[in-house]
């Protein structure tokens, strides 16, 4: 289920990376691995999942959508490492291809949300005044519903397809991104170098994108990792309810729906492996997100 309250932490992290410069981030990333073993573990999990997704075609042992009549609901074995489902499809191959779907939706929706939310937040924070007020109210509206509920209604309205699921998850996340970026823009706007640039007659657009945007990278990263976990969870939930990514893409959430529970006693691996896969992916991104936040949020630094 959606990790809704990530907003709180993000809010806390709001003014976070205002001071973090580009080099600072690279530097802290290196240091962070040494100082944050949990975060490093999270990063490692995520790396494994990314590699799995990337090389799915190479490391698969079977075609993930090929059915095998003679070998249905087989227990894990040397040929089928995680067993087969009720159609005789290889669970291991489906899990690694499922990583692709999960990441595609998770990363896709986070990027779409952060990008559009970021631009909206940047402009609304920079321009200020009435525009800001109107944008704020619109964001209020989109945030007035729990992530899952809005995503549910949206994916039902748009129909099941991978693009629509990405859209359905990114729209509810967007206001969060807008909020965070706006907050850091508001604080950066008052800095002297921005004022200096303005005094030198640099255009607004240039100020916004050249001087302010790079300085929002820190909170941006914190936000993106925090949302990645929720996006993966929401995708799994939507797919579980049959409103998510359609066949033939193997999706972890859908692997858990219908037949998994029906045949669970005969074939517990049907319930076990996809559930573990989802949990690990979200766990990894949460660990990483936590550590990143601790590192990039100056108020928590050293805490």
């Amino acid at each position: 289920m959606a990790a809704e309250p990530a907003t709180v932490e993000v809010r806390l992290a709001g003014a976070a990376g205002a001071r973090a410069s580009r080099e600072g981030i690279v530097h802290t990333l290196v240091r962070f691995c040494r100082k944050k073993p949990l975060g490093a573990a999270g990063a490692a999990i995520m790396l494994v999942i990314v590699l799995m997704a990337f090389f799915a075609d190479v490391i698969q042992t079977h075609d993930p959508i090929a059915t095998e009549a003679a070998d249905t609901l087989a227990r894990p074995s040397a040929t089928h490492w995680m067993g087969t489902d009720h159609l005789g499809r290889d669970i291991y191959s489906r899990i690694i291809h499922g990583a692709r779907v999960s990441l595609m939706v998770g990363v896709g929706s986070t990027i779409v949300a952060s990008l559009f939310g970021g631009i909206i937040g940047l402009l609304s924070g920079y321009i200020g005044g009435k525009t800001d007020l109107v944008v704020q109210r619109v964001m209020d509206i989109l945030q007035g519903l729990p992530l899952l509920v809005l995503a549910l209604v949206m994916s039902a309205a748009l129909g099941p397809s991978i693009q629509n699921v990405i859209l359905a998850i990114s729209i509810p996340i967007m206001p969060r991104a807008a909020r965070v970026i706006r907050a850091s823009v508001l604080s950066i706007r008052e800095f002297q170098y921005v004022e200096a640039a303005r005094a030198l007659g640099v255009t607004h657009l240039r100020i916004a994108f050249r001087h302010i945007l790079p300085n929002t990278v820190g909170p941006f990263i914190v936000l993106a990792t925090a949302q990645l976990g929720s996006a993966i969870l929401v995708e799994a939930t939507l797919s579980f309810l049959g409103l998510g990514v359609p066949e033939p893409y193997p999706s972890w959430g859908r692997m858990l729906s219908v037949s998994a529970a029906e045949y669970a006693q005969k074939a517990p691996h049907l319930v076990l492996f996809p559930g573990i896969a989802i949990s690990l992916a979200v766990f990894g991104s949460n660990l990483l997100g936590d550590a990143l936040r601790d590192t990039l949020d100056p108020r928590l630094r050293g805490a």
Partner: protein
Amino acid sequence: MKTYLAQRLGIAALTLFGMSLVIFVLLRLAPGDIVDILFSTGGYVNPSERVAIEKELGLDRPLWVQYLDWIRHLCVGDLGKSYRYDLPAWEIIRPLIPVTVELAVLSLIIAVLLGVPTGVISAVRQDTALDYALRVVSLAGLSMPSFWLAMVIILVLVAWIGWIPPVTYVSPWENFPLHAIQFLLPALAVGYRSSALMMRITRSALLEVMREDYIRTARAKGQSEKTVIWSHALKNAILPVVTVIGIEFAFLIGGLVVTETVFNLPGVARFLVQAISWRDYPIVQNLVMFIAVVVILSNLTVDMLYGVLDPRVRYGS
């Protein structure tokens, strides 16, 4: 305070109005003809039947008229008639609310009972093995899809003891122990997840508070570490915890979808999913508005509580 409240209520009304527009438009974006969808179980709707149904349900009117009609009725507390059930929407929605509220409250209680003490321990023992262990366990809770947890609970129960909690709602007056079991199991599944949030927020809030001057003062005054933590620090760290409780409550009202489905509890969230698949607009629209009102009210309550709980506010007055 009063003007602040009035202002907030104004914004809330504006938000709700916007929300109604968003939901109304979204639902009408759905592909396919509404009459086909509503009567898909009939198989085929012929053109003359279609015209009659559109007229009966008021779908032949322009969209903006339908929208205004909905809002006008909503303002006087009339939620319209369910397309599927031919009954006032309120009659159908009303019995769902207590189920979801009870489940949400119970889950939150479990979450606080589990999360706050572990958060304190974790903060006090910061960076020890215990801290890491607690954080990993709680983060695992946050990472497990609660529908999976719910599934596993049901499956393990039925496989091991051949028993599952009741599949129809048991009222507390009828059979309290059974009622308690029926709600406690899903509440545990959900509460474990929420407890992770409570734990994390308690831990970080406490760590932050402990660096504040007045804690140093208290320590300097020679008060025992126990007193410092439990009576000074925790009192002040409670603020973010309250915020999370508020936000989590709002989240749970709509977010219990799959838990309610797996445990077959007749709550708001489960019904929302059903109504969405039937395209029962009056039900979906009003359920979504209901969830929005809960979200806004709990946010408002949290903000009001700030005034009561924030020591800085208290010192100022």
